[in-house]
């Protein structure tokens, strides 16, 4: 079970969180023309990365905040975590 550092609450076990997928996906702006390809990329197309991956988790049984977690998908190592509005350098 992973041990995730919630930027709001501190170190918590994985069973307090729920997974939210790739954090680098950006929703197209509202009321903007979007091509089929762009929309498909947003809704469906994901890379299945091996290695460092920035992903979303929600601290669902804690502060309920969505956070960003930089995790190695092969080793499960967690490098850094960020608040939702934090820029990832």
């Amino acid at each position, binding site marked *: *079970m*992973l*041990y995730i550092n919630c930027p709001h609450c501190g170190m918590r*076990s994985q069973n307090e969180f*729920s997974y*939210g997928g790739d954090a680098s996906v950006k*929703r*197209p702006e*509202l*009321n903007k023309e*979007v091509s089929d390809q762009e*929309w498909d990329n*947003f*809704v*469906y197309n994901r890379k299945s990365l091996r290695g460092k991956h920035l992903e*979303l988790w*929600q601290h*669902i049984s804690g502060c*309920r*905040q*969505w956070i960003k977690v930089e995790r190695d998908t092969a*080793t*499960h190592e*967690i490098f850094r975590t960020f608040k*939702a*509005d934090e820029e990832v350098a």
Partner: protein
Amino acid sequence: MTQAFRIENGGLINRDKKLSFKFNGKTYLGYEGDSLASALLANGVHLVGRSFKYHRPRGFFGAGVDEPYAVVQLYRNGETEPNIKATEQELFEGLEAKSVNCWPSVNFDIGAINNFLKIFLPAGFYYKTFMWPKSFWYRIYEPFIRKAAGLGVASTKHDKERYEHKYEYCDLLIAGSGPSGLAGAYAAAKNGAKVILAEDKSRFGGSLLTSDVNIGNQSGQDWAEGIIAELKTMPNVVVKNRSQIFGYYDHNMLVMSEKVSDHLPATKKYHPNKRLWYIRAKEVLISSGSIERPIVFGNNDTPGVMLSSAAKEYLKVYGVLVGIKPLVFTNNDSGYETAIEFKKHGVDTVVLDSRKNPESEIIDEAKSLGINIKNSYVVVAAQGYKKVKSADIASISEDKKKLGKIENIECDCICVSGFWTPTIHLASQSGNKTKFKEEIDAFVPGQSKQNEITLGSANGVFSLEETLKTSFKTGSELSKKITKKDNEIAIPNVVEKKSSQHDKFWCVPLPKGKNYKRFLDFQNDVAVSDVEIALREGYRSIEHVKRYTTLGMATDQGKTSNLNGLQLVSEIENKVVPAVGHTTFRPPYTPVSIGAIVGREVGKQSKPTRKSPMHSWHEKNNAVFVDAGVWLRPRYYRRGNENLFEASKREAKNVRTNVGVCDVTTLGKIDVKGPDAAELLNRVYTNAWLKLPVGKARYGVMLREDGIVMDDGTTTRISENHYHMTTTTAQAANVLSHLEYYLQLVWPELNVNVVSTTEQWAGAAIAGPKSRDLLQKLFPKLDVSNEGLPFMGYMEGDLSGVKARIFRISFSGELAYEVNVESDYGNFMWEKIMEVGEEFNIQPYGTEALSTLRIEMGHVAGSELDGRTIPFDNALEGLVSKKKDFIGKRSLQRSAFIAEDRQRIVGVVPLDKQTSIPEGSHLVKDDKAPLPNPKLGHISASCWSVEYDNPFSLAILKDGKNMIGQKLFAMSPLKNKVIPVEIVSSHYVDPKGERVRS
């Protein structure tokens, strides 16, 4: 019964307390502190089971966790448990156990015929044989294999025992209480670290219990006792026996199974049977020790052949002689220690040492005691069927290829030692890159992946002095980093006998003309010849050889067989062992009860049970409950001998004619507050929200980004910046997360807060033509006329002093209202409604009637919003705004979603107006068409229409829009039904929706 093989004195058992127990129906006596294995051996019982494949007689091979044979079925306090190792089961008064894998009895087992037909059961036999003919599999092969296989029988009764889960955090977790574990724990504890020390056996001390050493001025065993006693007094230390750490998971999470009650005749009141610990440790010291490995020779599975360390443990810990004419067969000094221990108790042994001329202090001691030692000698084969009677022995050439003349010597047990295999399971599970250590012919941990360090013999270090030194140091340094304290500890002097180099020899060649089975894996009956076949047939990877032969795949995980198997593969392949590599170690290290894994989450406790504030009223009024997600809801209220069908029909009919009341507390409720609340709703729902006035409710549908309907419900504008959103019972949690996702990540600029208020409000739906009259009586001061409180209107009221929210919304299609009060007043509200409603013939109605009412009105619910439908499919396209953008809108342009013959909701009526259509039935054009019969749609919900008094169903049907009036067939192979049906509008009752507005 006498305990003929128990020595007069000695051992760690309590001779003052005799215990009686039964094995295979026969009563025996043992002592407190015995294991089932030691007690049986004390009584001379060596035959305990039959082997897996050939049903050969099997006895005891080890004395602990490595035991491959002595797996028994245990009976305790009216319960039974399979897959119990007799070597690990502590004896208690009244224990009962039986052999497994034999029929009719362990002494006469019909399956043993496999032993004489063994030519037919080589590696891969099952794969090769049971392939054809195909039809034989279910009828003949599978039942036969099922009966033949297995290690006991699981109980089919409900388990009365309780199992607990516990979460714990510590600085240092120490797995194993041998010398390295004790030293590491002690040093860390002295530095103030939070320490958990876990020992799988009942006694602490590990190898110190059986070795002849001195630490400081005391025996190793006394030293261990002293350390444990001191650790137990320290507040920062948790010391646990009977606790096996069986799994090492990500981020230094380890799981331990504590056997709280297995050693007692019955579990004490309020105690669990087992406790599963999830431990998050900052640092882990693995001091899991090592397991002696066997040398492979002919018939090496005969009862009486056992590990020499086990023979020594039975003698030193339990005071039991495993034989009175032992033969020791060794390639290292450990065998001598066993021989010396026998000699001390007046039993003469013969030691066969494969080495030519070994010299060491231990060997010198054996010689001085006059023990008969034969160098360059090996056991070729054990003789005897149900027990060793003699051994064929021979001298062996220096290159270990040629045997001398075979001699036969009498013996009643063969104690074998092929040196030691470090227990690297936990380190390997954690991701440690193990490496092969030439000097000991075994793998040891290498580069750590997580915060784990392996110490002592688990790390391939067999000198006590060195082990203590490194363990004290490691424990001290690791804890110092965490606690910043440094309490120096003097490392005690160690007196131990030096041993000499072991012989790299693991398998005795077959003598000419003999075809003895030489077993590698004792539990799965894998012999040398099986691995040879696998390699001959082209299997190369050790992982493939393992699966083809099942080597190391038994419940003992090959603790005694893996390395010998690797040696064999590397020898045949002409590779070195590290090039062959070992198979992956996976948790659990030892079998763990399913009960312990499940813990308290059994039956009703497998999920939380939520009850509405009116629950006790429902109970008192004969409600029959149904699980709705985690909620318990009344399904119907039984009157007299009514069944579900009759009761729900009565309740639904009363709503259509008078007035009914339904508990709708379970609906999800979310408070949406803030200046941008309307904007959020406008983006989340498919319809327009910016112009909803205060005091009005609106029905909304929300989509996922892929265009699929996620949920529906009404949202009411309570005040300028305050909305009360309702969701379906099932989707409440998902909708909240969904809103939080958009507010926190996508549109953080929106100034809105959302919070769940599901539990804050109790809700009652009042529905039926007389509901307005009832409402007026409940709130005499309010104007609840059609003008005062129109359809989709909202007002606040005073219910005899309790603040209430009144919504004019309807799920039943009738004139209806929903009244909410704070949860604590829920029951008060309900009783008031029932009391005032009496004159209007009010009846409560449950979820079954609720479904009937919504189905015949064509209102969609969870069975239509099933994660596969878009608004059009549910006839909700009128709610999809063309002007504004919203979540999922772009997806609605996908070609499949705008196809001309897109699926759509319809009503379905059986032509005979009698036969109810099972939910899930497929709609087809031709009931006689060959399979696969093209499916046009499926029945999503069915009811008995109280309006028309005939069955009515909803269906999602391809091109549903143009199918009204068509005749189709509803087919349910599950219920074996073919029903001719007619497709009608989904709005079966009141298609214009006049009643809700009346």
